[in-house]
């Protein structure tokens, strides 16, 4: 039971980070980022592709990338188990790199369609993300592809039985920081102009805003944030397996969460993430029981896809504003007006 709760909390934290970043782009800014998975994958790529290569080079390990990575990860894990500070240092180093790489990936991926309307924007973002995913999946030399590569355990200093809890706490801290950051950032004229962009881009163009720049900056920021989730995820799983960063889990599900919780409302998105992860983890955790109980002649994961697809359609149709409605942005001067002229 504790195991299940920890699992739920860990993935809750990851989905909070990714969905909040999508809420920035889509919920506030109206950018249909159907390439969300790309930014999470970028975080994983930083750890599996860059950190591993640095370590292989540092330890002077020979051989093919995948087995050299295993050895490098093993050696680093040994070192970290004696030196907590090195582990945390590596983590911060990777987060920093992931933020930079995520920002670049986000900005680049929106560049081709930054001037176009929502449909072209969405299609191009999806296509770029899919192609990068496919290449990283089939080419095992970049970051292990479908075989996967090991990465060091940056919390190796924590005794084995507490390892998962430690990662969960780490993930929750990251999620909390992202939440506070975005709440502060978006309760401002920046949040206002993003909403304006979502409602009518021509109008804000006529009022002096460079829509292309706004989109590029917002995508850079959103992707930088989501890349952090990728870093936390791969350290937790001690490996990068590219399949784990597919479009369903890291593009579609975050959209489902934003819609469920309420687009444009960060609190709603956190709530949405919680409900979604609870459901998903229960299905994952009890998949054999479900299969047996319902006499399913197939794996429960297919049922999960169908259920979440239907759930998304139902929300779109019957509750497009989500559980918690969007609220106006009350900056301090507006808030004081609420008292003087209600």
């Amino acid at each position, binding site marked *: 039971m504790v195991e299940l709760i920890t699992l739920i909390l860990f993935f809750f934290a990851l989905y909070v980070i990714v969905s909040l970043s999508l809420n920035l782009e889509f919920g506030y800014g109206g950018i249909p980022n159907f390439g969300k998975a790309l930014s999470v994958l970028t975080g994983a790529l930083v750890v599996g592709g860059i950190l591993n290569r640095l370590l292989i080079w540092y330890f002077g390990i020979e051989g093919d990338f995948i087995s050299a990575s295993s050895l490098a990860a093993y050696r680093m894990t040994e070192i970290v188990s004696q030196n907590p500070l090195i582990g945390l240092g590596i983590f911060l180093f990777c987060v920093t790199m992931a933020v930079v790489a995520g920002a670049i990936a986000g900005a680049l991926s929106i560049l081709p369609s930054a001037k176009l309307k929502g449909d072209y924007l969405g299609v191009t973002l999806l296509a770029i993300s899919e192609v990068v995913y496919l290449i990283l999946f089939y080419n095992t030399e970049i970051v292990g592809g479908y075989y996967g590569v090991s990465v060091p355990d940056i919390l190796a200093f924590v005794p084995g039985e507490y390892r998962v809890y430690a990662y969960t706490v780490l993930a929750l801290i990251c999620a909390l920081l992202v939440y506070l950051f975005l709440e502060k950032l978006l309760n*401002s*004229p920046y949040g206002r*102009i993003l909403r304006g962009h979502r409602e009518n881009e021509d109008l804000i163009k006529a009022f002096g805003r460079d829509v292309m720049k706004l989109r590029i900056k917002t995508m850079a920021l959103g992707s930088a944030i989501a890349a952090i989730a990728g870093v936390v995820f791969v350290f937790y799983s001690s490996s990068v397996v590219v399949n784990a960063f597919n479009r369903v889990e890291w593009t579609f599900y975050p959209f489902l969460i934003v819609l469920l919780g309420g687009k444009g409302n960060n609190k709603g998105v956190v709530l949405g993430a919680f409900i979604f992860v609870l459901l998903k983890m229960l299905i994952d955790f009890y998949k054999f029981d479900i299969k047996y109980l319902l006499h399913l002649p197939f794996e429960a994961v297919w049922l999960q896809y169908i259920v979440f697809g239907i759930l998304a359609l139902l929300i779109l149709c019957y509750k497009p504003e989500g559980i918690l409605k969007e609220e106006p942005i009350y900056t301090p001067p507006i808030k004081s*007006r609420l008292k003087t002229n209600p």
Partner: protein
Amino acid sequence: MILLETKNLCKSFDGVKALDNVSIEVERNKLTLVMGPNGSGKSTLINAISGFIKVDSGKVIFEDRDITNREPHEIYNYGIVRTFQNPEPLKSMTVLENVLIGRKHSGEEITNALFTSRWMKEEEELVERAFKILEFLKLDHRWDHPSRALSGGQMKLLEIGRALITDPKLIIMDEPIAGVAPGLAHDIFSHVVELKNKGISFLIVEHRLDIVLKYVDNLYVMFNGSVIAHGKGRDEIEKVLNDPKVIEVYIGD
């Protein structure tokens, strides 16, 4: 004193000439009206001036500067704002937010947004201004309502409010009273006249001449992408309206 001038603007869509050598002048502190039947190129003219479409040839000159084919956001920086033919307010945002968003704000930069102190003063002044404007337009009692709750006429007023907060030199409006009841339409134009007296110039496209005529200083008539008649001042406007070419166009409409 000429504020804005177009010189021989041309624009074709798929071989159809939407603008055919259009030259107009907008005088400072005057209300210039462009009229003409549907499809005569009025909106295209506005789009060309405000940078929403790129013209094939010709020039747009504003305060002696060439602003032809600039991006819309650059044109705003010169002090020109425009409204759209089918105004869609930012529906899910409040009336106040709709006005506030008119003006560029240093708090919109991601690096500033995080530090409230960097944009607080600007925001205070802006909110103050916005309330004054809403009072002027008699929309202040609804400032915290979502703008989708407004009536059609109030939405048009809101458009004016959003334009005002930018301290513009020129406001361009595309059919500001289309679909508005006559009473409210006169209301809107009396606001326009008041603003004109405060030093703002107007370029307005409209074809409900019955209502707007008495507020107009200069008049252009467009048909099939060209200006077919124009007049400055009362007497010339009178002449234009009795011009057989103009009458024919309007009877044909």
